[in-house]
């Protein structure tokens, strides 16, 4: 067998570093690539994914492994496709998930294309997920062996052609095994805290970011309860998310939570914690990893946020490809714009974007 070439998307972190080292040990010709993503001017040093620090760390790992290393400047597409989507998403009232978008458009877009143009056979990342091929040659996405680290949620948009060219070397490892391997490979790993924050926010609250980037400040409006009673004024709908309790500026009585945003009437609807529990919602832009299901109703589990539990649900596929999801039990804070990702057991079937929360 001739030597296969794999491009590893590197970040300077322990996961992608160990992924690169493992592939090298398995006999692949490994090339490291790190993307420079967009950062606000003056805030380059706090970008979670590509600070100059992490760039140097990634280079250092490449140097230790003695593999070629290149940087891929994706600042412009990242801004145009991810950051603007994020800003416009909030402007339009949803809570966008830029990481899913980034995986779709940047990692398995610009990065994969660059890898192929370098002559690589595969793109590998340090994500925790598994790819399994069935007897018909169809690729499936499975949860990582380390359930606590599983990242299949943000990978649900991968297609057959993506998966055919993708390797997840860490899918069968636990985080502690990965740390141990880093030690074994004598790779330097930064003592940086893991974080779920968005890279380009650099630890800042998204509201401050929006303040600087919205074309015009959104109009303030009324806060009402679920019966339409006036409770106060909001500062503009983009600054609130579903389930938010703090910062509503309503005093007295039991705590209020954001239940919905009524964009048409510029109303922020608040209610009790119980009011944020919903059962039915629609999902659009659905990707079915293994191909469209042959039946129109499915029993499965669904994750409605990166860290939500697996919720039992019944799913009905509509004519237009969108889905209606009915949970067996109501669940908190189901938020338009976030991904709903479908599972059967360990297998991730795919997912889409939560569109409308019905009841």
């Amino acid at each position, binding site marked *: 067998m001739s030597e296969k070439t794999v491009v590893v998307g590197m970040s300077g972190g322990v996961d992608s570093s160990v992924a690169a080292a493992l592939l090298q040990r398995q006999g692949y010709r490994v090339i490291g690539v790190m993307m420079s993503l967009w950062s606000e001017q003056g805030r380059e040093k706090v970008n979670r994914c590509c600070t100059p*620090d992490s760039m*140097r760390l990634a*280079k*250092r790992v*490449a*140097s*230790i492994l003695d593999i*070629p290393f*290149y940087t891929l400047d994706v600042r412009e597409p990242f801004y145009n496709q991810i950051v603007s989507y994020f800003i416009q998403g909030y402007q339009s009232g949803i809570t966008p998930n830029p990481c899913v978008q980034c995986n779709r458009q940047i990692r398995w877009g610009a990065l994969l294309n660059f890898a192929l143009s370098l002559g690589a056979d595969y793109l590998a990342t340090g994500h925790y997920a598994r790819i399994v091929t069935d007897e018909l040659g169809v690729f499936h996405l499975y949860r990582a062996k380390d359930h606590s680290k599983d990242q299949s949620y943000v990978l649900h948009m991968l297609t057959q052609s993506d998966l055919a060219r993708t390797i997840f070397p860490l899918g069968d490892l636990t985080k502690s095994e990965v740390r141990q391997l880093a030690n074994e490979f004598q790779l330097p790993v930064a003592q940086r805290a893991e974080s779920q924050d968005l890279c380009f926010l650099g630890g800042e609250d998204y509201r401050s970011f929006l303040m600087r980037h919205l074309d015009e400040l959104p109009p303030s409006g009324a806060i009402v309860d679920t019966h339409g009673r006036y409770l106060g004024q909001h500062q503009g709908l983009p600054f609130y998310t579903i389930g938010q309790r703090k910062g509503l500026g309503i005093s007295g009585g039991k705590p209020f939570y954001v239940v919905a945003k009524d964009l048409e009437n510029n109303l922020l609807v608040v209610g009790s914690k119980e009011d944020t529990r919903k059962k039915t919602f629609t999902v659009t832009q659905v990707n079915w990893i293994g191909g469209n299901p042959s039946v129109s109703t499915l029993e499965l589990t669904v994750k409605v946020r990166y860290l939500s539990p697996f919720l039992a649900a019944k799913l009905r596929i509509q004519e237009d490809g969108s889905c209606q999801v009915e949970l067996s039990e109501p669940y908190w804070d189901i938020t338009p714009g976030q991904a709903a990702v479908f599972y059967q057991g360990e297998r991730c079937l795919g997912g889409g974007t939560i569109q409308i929360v019905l009841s």
Partner: protein
Amino acid sequence: MMNRNNRIYLDYAATTPLADEVVEAMLPYFQKEFGNPSSLHRFGQRAEGALEEARMTIAAHLNCSDEEIVFTSGGTESDNLALRGCAFARREQVGANHLLITAVEHHAVSHTAEQLARHFGFEVEILEVDSQGLVSPEIVQNHIRPNTALVSVIYANNEIGSINPISEIGKICRERGVPFHTDAVQATAYLSLDVEALNVDLLSLGAHKFYGPKGIGALYVRKGIPLLPCQTGGGQEWGLRSGTPNIPYIVGMSTALKFVQKNQANWTTSLAHLRDWLIEQVLKRIPQSRLTGHPTQRLPNLASFVFKGVHSQKLIALLDAEGFACSSGSACKTGNPSPSEVLLAMGIEPELALSSLRVTLGRDTKLEHLESFVDCLIEKVVQLRG
């Protein structure tokens, strides 16, 4: 007279020979791994890998992070960058216009400060030292001002070897919010360079004093310390020192520092032992001889004396003719030597200051070398006193 091949080198403070492993580590980077670390291709990547590994070795030795290391062409450039860079940046930032240095600085510091005073309008104040050449924390405390741009105090002096209380002085500067520089060029082989323990913000290194090559050095710059680059261009070294880095020499310096790490503990005891033997013999056997600098708070490899009535330039020539290489300690090499400013600052009369001798030991120095050296020295002093 000794034959040429039997020369005994006793001038390790002037410079040192390269350790074998240093030469070996450098060689690949002249021809095989010759890339420019800024290049994006594999040649460049290999060079950059070597550069950054060297930086990490040095950073680890200084207990700092690698972004705080700037490679320079040597101790002199490091001192220049620290003083000039910090003075200009601090004046621009906060209007600080006052520089505090000491009377025992190397010319790389004192002449830079002098130029900043003469041509750039800085007020330079030169702190006095005691009779042993030491700078006291109190005097720094008393002279530091709100508008002080920088304090610079040499770690271990190159002429007399006295070791200053850097950590205490650094603490005072830190409390007053004034950046603190130390020239650690002579200290590197023998003293701790832990920048946290030393409370320093800027620290100068030069490789050829610790078995590395000449023409390469580094400056430690604590994160957040303002520094205006003195050499502008392609933005290498965090923009603080442009120019394609000298990879083979940088690799040499980091290898030399590893050589220091391996040997430092041994040297500090064995060389101090030899030094003390030498000092004792000289003071006991040569009348009207005097040790300069502090008797114990001094570099383990440095012994310095004055011999009343002996002209040091002649003494050095006579000793060299017998195969012993040492120095007067003062920088002046040609023409009419002027007495060392350092010795004058310690209160030694000008005439006596012209009779100085500096003997510095190193990794190859043996007791038997010193035994024959002392015999020879006695003879030559007697001869010159005529």
